[in-house]
């Protein structure tokens, strides 16, 4: 056996350390970000307590007025940080986005996987992936110029006429800036993510099983419904969770079309709202002029809540996927 040279050993060592650094960095980043967010939130957690997540009034206080001392914390007079409006906004917009995006994604993925072949299939797949690459500020602009007026003048009124008897769907359609428009814009941003993942899942369904379905006289739809969808279910839950996380964290597009409401919970499907991510982006600059620093801590706690909710949905999705049979897992493991 040939002796391993010193240089080769050193190279191997460098390789090991380099891979370890790279592989370790995501963990370190996650821990560092979470650590800093938690650390920065501590003063507000002590100051507001649980009222932070149940209160609806967000007030930085009089930044140009006197500083008062409450529970041992120096804050601007009148300061109170209640984030329920933004938590509700984040959850509602992302859920509306999922309600719109999931059926569209399943059907598009099905078509891409099974129905179109060759050049057309290739072009369509590329187009779906290009959609994912549109910068969110461009989507937001499209939301302001097209979706908001359309919701205000046509779509919102249409929904209201059909479903208006259900409490949350009736009422004033308003300006088009709000919950429904944000949901539509977000849906457009998560459709590509869910679609491309789901298409790959559909392609992993064994041909034999699908052919068997067709062989016993199932229609195309029945094959998908009774063979493909059950087969990919676990992976699909993961795909939806991925899209959901994206929808909750999206900032710019929502900020542009949501109407950025504060101090008021949405009254109906068309009400202006604001999300946690958009609100942090909006308020950070003013927060930095708070001499007591409490405003920045409050925004940190808002970021912490967003982080916890996003991680929680991810964990729930994983938990939903976990207790399935091992055979399917082989097919859909990603």
């Amino acid at each position, binding site marked *: 056996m040939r002796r391993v040279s010193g240089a080769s050993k050193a190279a191997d060592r460098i390789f*090991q350390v380099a891979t370890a650094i790279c592989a370790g960095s995501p963990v370190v980043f996650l821990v560092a970000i979470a650590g800093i967010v938690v650390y920065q939130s501590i003063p507000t957690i002590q100051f507001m307590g649980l009222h932070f997540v149940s209160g609806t009034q967000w007030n930085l206080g009089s930044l140009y007025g006197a500083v008062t001392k409450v529970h041992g914390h120096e804050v601007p007079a009148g300061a109170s940080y209640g984030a329920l409006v933004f938590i509700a906004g984040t959850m509602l917009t992302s859920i509306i986005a999922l309600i719109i995006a999931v059926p569209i994604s399943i059907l598009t993925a099905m078509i891409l996987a099974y129905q179109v072949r060759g050049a057309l299939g290739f072009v369509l797949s590329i187009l779906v992936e290009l959609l994912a690459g549109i910068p969110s500020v461009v989507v937001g602009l499209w939301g302001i110029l097209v979706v908001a007026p359309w919701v205000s003048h046509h779509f919102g009124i249409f929904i209201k006429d059909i479903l208006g008897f259900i409490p949350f769907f009736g009422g004033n359609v308003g300006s088009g800036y709000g919950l429904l428009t944000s949901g539509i814009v977000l849906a457009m941003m998560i459709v590509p993510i869910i679609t491309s993942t789901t298409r790959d899942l559909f392609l992993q369904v064994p041909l034999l099983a699908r052919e068997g379905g067709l062989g016993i006289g199932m229609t195309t739809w029945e094959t998908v419904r009774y063979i493909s969808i059950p087969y990919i279910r676990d992976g699909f839950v993961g795909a939806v969770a991925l899209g959901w996380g994206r929808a909750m964290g999206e900032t710019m597009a929502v900020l542009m079309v949501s109407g950025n409401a504060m101090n008021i919970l949405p009254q109906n499907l068309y009400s202006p709202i604001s999300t946690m991510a958009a609100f942090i982006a909006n308020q950070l600059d003013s927060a930095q002029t708070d001499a007591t620093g409490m405003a920045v801590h409050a925004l940190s706690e808002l970021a912490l809540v967003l982080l916890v909710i996003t991680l929680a949905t991810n964990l729930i999705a994983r938990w939903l996927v976990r207790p399935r049979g091992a055979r399917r897992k082989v097919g859909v493991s990603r």
Partner: protein
Amino acid sequence: MRYNKLLAGVTALVAVATVAGCGTNNTSNTANTSNATTNTNNVSGNTSGNASTTANVQLAETGSSLLYPLFNSQWVPAYHKVAPNVQLTAASTGSGTGISDATSGTADIGASDAYMADAQIAQTPDMLNIPVAISAQQIMYNIPGVTGHLKLTGPVLADIYEGKIKYWDDQAITSLNPGTKLPHLQIVPVHRSDSSGDTFLFTQFLSDTDSNWSKTISYSTSVSWPGVQTAIGAKGNDGVVAALSSTKGSIGYVGISWLAKGTQAGLGYAQLKNKAGNFVLPTTANIKAAATQGAKHVPSDERVSLIDEPGANSYPIINFEYLIVKDDQPSAAKATALKNFMKWAIDPSKGNSSKYMTPVNFLPLPSNVYAKSEVQIQKIHG
């Protein structure tokens, strides 16, 4: 073997953690490095017997998006010709970030539409607030069928933003505008969702003219807007103009540099009731009249509101645009460069001339304010 891998992994994690740890100190590091550079330059300048003005100095400005066009497209190229050794850079980050950057030393100049609050000054008493220009703001609205300029007052605007006045044909508005036929249309109050000097101006106007607003909401670059069901928050002056033009019955406040774009988008703008009881438009003459009145009561630290000045023609919503700087600079070279630039900027024949101000819709400083700014600039030392 496995033990080795583990060891490598742990070492790597520690290495990354160290790097990440350094990251948090980044701003101070950068500041230190630039100080060191200036110091070296200063030393070399001194040894070669030259005045410190010939040494290369970097001046970084961050802050107000409203002041950014003045810096980036007017002052930076112009000042480069005046003092080629000074590298002036500008960045649009928002006023609050500008102030905190100047305070922490990340930037040399923080541009802001609002002056620093007393509480901030108490914390960092070495910060100077130096006015460099005058700006104004108009109230714009989208009411189909209404031509001409609607007459509005501070208390009426406060009631609109508090949701107390809900329709355009409310008696409070019609009584101010006897000749105008106003529709029964729901009012959509539009405010800035992002932190903004425009919000500071508008809420200060409402605070000064409406005691209830002053008690409940007060003024700041972001305020806790009353929860009105129709109210919309829009980002940036462009976002407000877009929201106004697409929403019938809307009303909002917009910076004067957006007046032309707003009227092109079909928006009207209001005559506001001033302290003398007259309804005035934001014309150059009316803004100047207000600035002249305001200049009379500028304190030595120049942190002052110019809202609702007396005088028959004074337009009620105007303000100073500020440059925020530290009085104790890290080096003599930097202090000199900063002083020279600031003096140039406020000089009516140089940086403050209409050549630079008019393209960005600012007005130059009144002459007695110029003198006060100069005194403040002299406080900058190395």
